[in-house]
């Protein structure tokens, strides 16, 4: 069972009101809910289904269909390593390996236990001129090397430690 903070609950209500509880707005509603939780807890999905008058199975279907939606908690920082053709030939795999090693992610795990980082690959970010590319949340880092990846992560860890 996942804790929903009062602020998150207020936010869900506000999102539902903003989209006038229209079933046709399910996807933008789910996007907004995910922005709050960083994933879609099933309790929140059930609440959205009730509010929109949709069957929970179809809301679950939509939430699991799109790769953008996550049903398990994601880290505060989502690291996307591009593995499109251009990045791949520029050795993006070495970036991924370095990041995973730095964050001590075991096989089959993409999120750190402290919920600080989630590491995923994407198939082309459309920034092939900057290959290989890594994106942390909304910030794009181009022409990366394993060492530069380490630097970026170190900075984040530092700023988190001082908070």
């Amino acid at each position, binding site marked *: 069972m*996942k804790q929903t903070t009062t602020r998150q609950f207020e936010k869900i209500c506000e999102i539902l009101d903003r989209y006038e509880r229209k079933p046709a707005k399910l996807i933008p509603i789910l996007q907004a809910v995910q922005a709050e939780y960083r994933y879609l807890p099933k309790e929140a999905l059930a609440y959205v*289904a009730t509010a929109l008058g949709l069957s929970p199975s179809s809301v679950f279907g939509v939430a699991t269909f799109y790769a953008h939606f996550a049903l398990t908690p994601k880290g505060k920082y989502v690291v996307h390593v591009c593995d499109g053709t251009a990045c791949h030939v520029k050795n993006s795999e070495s970036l991924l390996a370095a990041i995973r090693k730095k964050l001590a992610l075991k096989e089959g795990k993409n999120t750190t236990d402290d919920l600080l980082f989630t590491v995923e690959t994407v198939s082309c970010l459309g920034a092939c001129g900057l290959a290989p590319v890594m994106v942390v949340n909304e910030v794009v880092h181009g022409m990366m090397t394993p060492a530069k990846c380490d630097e970026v992560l170190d900075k984040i860890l530092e700023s988190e430690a001082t908070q």
Partner: protein
Amino acid sequence: MNTTPDTPKPATMIIDGRELPLEGERNVLEVARKAGIDIPTFCYHSELSVYGACRLCLVEIEGRGVQASCSIVPEPGMQVRTNTKQVRDIRRIALELLLANHDMNCPTCARSATCRLRELSERMGIDEVRYKPVHERQPKDKSSLSLVRDPNKCVLCGDCVRACRELQGVGAIDFAFRGAHSAVLPAFGQNLDTGECVNCGLCASVCPTGALTPRPEMDAVWADLDDPDKVVIAQLAPAVRVGLGEYFGMKPGSITTGQAVAALRAIGFDKVYDTSFTADMTVLEEGEEFLRRFSDGGPLPLFTSCCPAWVKYAEQFHHELLPNLSSCKSPQQMFGAVARKMLPEQMKLEGKELVIVSVMPCTAKKFEAKQDKFIHDGVPEVNHVITTTELGQMLRQCGLQLDTLEPESFDMPLGFKTGAGVLFGVSGGVTEAVLRYAVEKMRGTPLEQVDFKEVRGEAGLREAVITVNGVELRLAIVNGLANVKTVVESIQNGACPYHLVEVMACPGGCVAGAGQPHAPGPEVRRQRARAIYHNDKGLELHKAQENPELARCYREHFGEVGGHAAHDALHTEYQHRRRLHELNLEIIEGQEAEKIPVQVCVGTNCFLNGSQELLRKLTRYVENKNLEDRVHLSATFCMERCGQSPNVRVGDTHLERCTFDAARAALDERLAGIMATVQ
């Protein structure tokens, strides 16, 4: 030659060189099938929306290449070829890919005899599968009392998803995930029994493979038949007598009542009775209830309660209709209650246990029989429910052929019925049977013409008006639960003030139930319905009130129709039923050991009645007063008191029609209590 030159030549299209007239078919597939070309399909179902997923119905269309014939509207002059090499090759690949991930344990599959995948593989001559499986084995879901879901056999045709949503308006299952991970699942991947499923089994009826099948109870029945300390009796539902024959290759609509009775005795049942007897009883009880409500002013309309899938649907989605539901138990449960009351004395059980087995065309009856309210002091009214198909299978296990058995008669007295009780097997039948009682009573003179043909038919929603003594009785007959929505809307907006509404979940009624032999389709359904009406005609009595054994049963055991004893044994109550389980939105989780649990219901009804705002206000109140450590506040889905929404629970106090002030007062009171003990 056409001798009337004025008549325009009908539009035609060419399929495999044959010129075929276009007569309003929805798609090329229907034109081809009409001409006797059975293009293979999984996902095409004439009563569901067109989906176009299975890619087996591919054809080549001149100028348009290879297309799915189910999704192409026929046009005049269109040239179609259904059996080119390209089409055959693609179909073969599609089938092989499905087989690669299919759990091919065919000999032990419940659907091995009627599996469409097996049949098409054989038809297309698939002798090897060139692809490797990529799916991991998933566990079977055996949680439901009515159905078994085996994801390893799913071919993702979506027939079940569309049937549940489009015909039943439930949506208990849907597609989840995508690509190679696609699956048909209940919400959140939970088990079937935790969700909205009403157990009608329509998904299993339309499933082309063994991914969804009725949950069998044959082993438990055999165990009781083998037990010398048990006396085992059977009740046979009306629709079974017109369905069982098909299992043995007879024509749809063959009436095999006598053979079914003989067969049940042959495999060891001590007595064989007819559910139509208690269907007659239902007519009297429900008819009396109707007349009483009609003269006392309600609540009307009276909704029938024979169909357990409909009852669960109403309990989940239409709490406001529960007072309108007839309080009569279904004929199956009435039979159990009557048999437990009458038979122990009559059969001289000598300490042996009486076991009651139902043979039903229905999967929801399995769920119904196991409800707590139908189990008294540990003894269920009905012990086991097997389907028509399960009975067929039990007979075949014993090497019995239905058509070679000499017909036998039901045992008395619970085997004697009138045509009214038989009509329960078909949509419109309950209404007609009740009318034969109620109209005669209203008129006060014997009813000569017993047929009410205006209530018969096939449409999913039918209306009829019967005038009695100058008073109009307005009736609605519903089959397919999706049509309930229309009826409820027209009742609530006052457009159709019905008096009586009959609801059966399965399109066509019980004759097309999920427990009947497979693949009904409209024509088979029509034949079975016709057989029910023939069966009624073939009996001497047609009005339940003329059943002499029933009259005696009332005289000796239940007193007056609708009286006190009858009410105790033959009627029941309904409950609001939650649809989502094990889901709570935890909003404030207090840290102190002693904290007050506060739950606000956010199920559909409470939500619509403002529970979101209430919850918001409570949340702010707790925060503003810095009470976060002392309160455990959560939103929960349905407290099963939808009629009194919004519902709030503070500690163990339940607050109905709760306002923020009432909730706050209750919370303050509890807090004061805690603070006093803490200090």
